[in-house]
């Protein structure tokens, strides 16, 4: 395994909540794709079997943190300062994917945009913009 891949695996396996969500990630070079398998416990609306808005937000936030763990390795988890989640379409009972774009990684603060989609990359169902406080590096 390459070093970024190890960092990512370390992050994903250390955080119990990542397992609760049922999220994993794949790395191609330095580009990470987070993957959330559908599971009944993630549903927020049983009439249309849609993912809970909080689950969507959490998935986007964890994607940002996972990408930061690759770009800015640290023995400690980076901290979320603020996030804005935009809901574009219902999250259906399908596998979801997300990618993070590190817009700016400063000495202490990172600005990250994340977009999530299901079967069509061009039709995102949610997006996140957020600021994160970086923990000291390894």
């Amino acid at each position, binding site marked *: 395994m390459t070093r970024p891949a190890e960092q990512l695996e370390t992050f994903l396996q250390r955080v119990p*909540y990542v397992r609760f969500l049922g999220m994993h990630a794949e790395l191609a070079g330095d580009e990470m794709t987070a993957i959330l398998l559908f599971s009944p416990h993630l549903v927020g609306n049983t009439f249309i079997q849609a993912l809970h808005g*909080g689950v969507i937000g959490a998935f986007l*936030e964890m994607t940002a943190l996972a990408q930061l763990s690759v770009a800015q390795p640290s023995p400690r988890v980076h901290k979320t300062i603020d996030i804005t989640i935009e809901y574009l379409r219902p999250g259906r009972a399908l596998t979801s994917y997300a990618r993070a774009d590190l817009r700016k990684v400063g000495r202490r603060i990172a600005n990250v945009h994340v977009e999530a989609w299901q079967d069509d990359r061009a039709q995102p169902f949610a997006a996140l913009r957020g600021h994160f406080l970086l923990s000291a590096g390894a």
Partner: protein
Amino acid sequence: MAEVPEIVRQMAEHMATTVPQAASLGFKLVSVDVGRGSIRAPWREDLVGDPDTEVIAGGVVTSLLDHTCGLAMASAAGTEAFSTATLDLRIDYMRPAAPRAGVIAEAHCYKLTRTIGFVRAEAWDVDKSDLIATAQAAFVLNRPRPPEGRS
């Protein structure tokens, strides 16, 4: 203050505990009032976001705030049948929760138009005057089609 109709109270109880995501996080209804709601999320080992400190994950707080905002919206709309969708949700994290502490959220739908609800929410762990997070959300309200002749 106006009494909360029994049906709204039942809806609140249902929302807080039987929606699958809420049930899987162990949410409990704290209170419901007209345009207001409060829900508690207990700490659990499998919901930890930082293994070094055993603090509950931000994602749980996100679900809790979104859900409590939805509850405030629903109780503002009263007995009318409708569905809602979150347009956006902004969360500021002031500080991590205390280690092994659950979180309580309280939301207020301070404006409800025919189509949109505006909601603010706060979350704390131990002391309500020492918040861990605040949220601001907008919801779209999907009411049943009005009868002919009404706008």
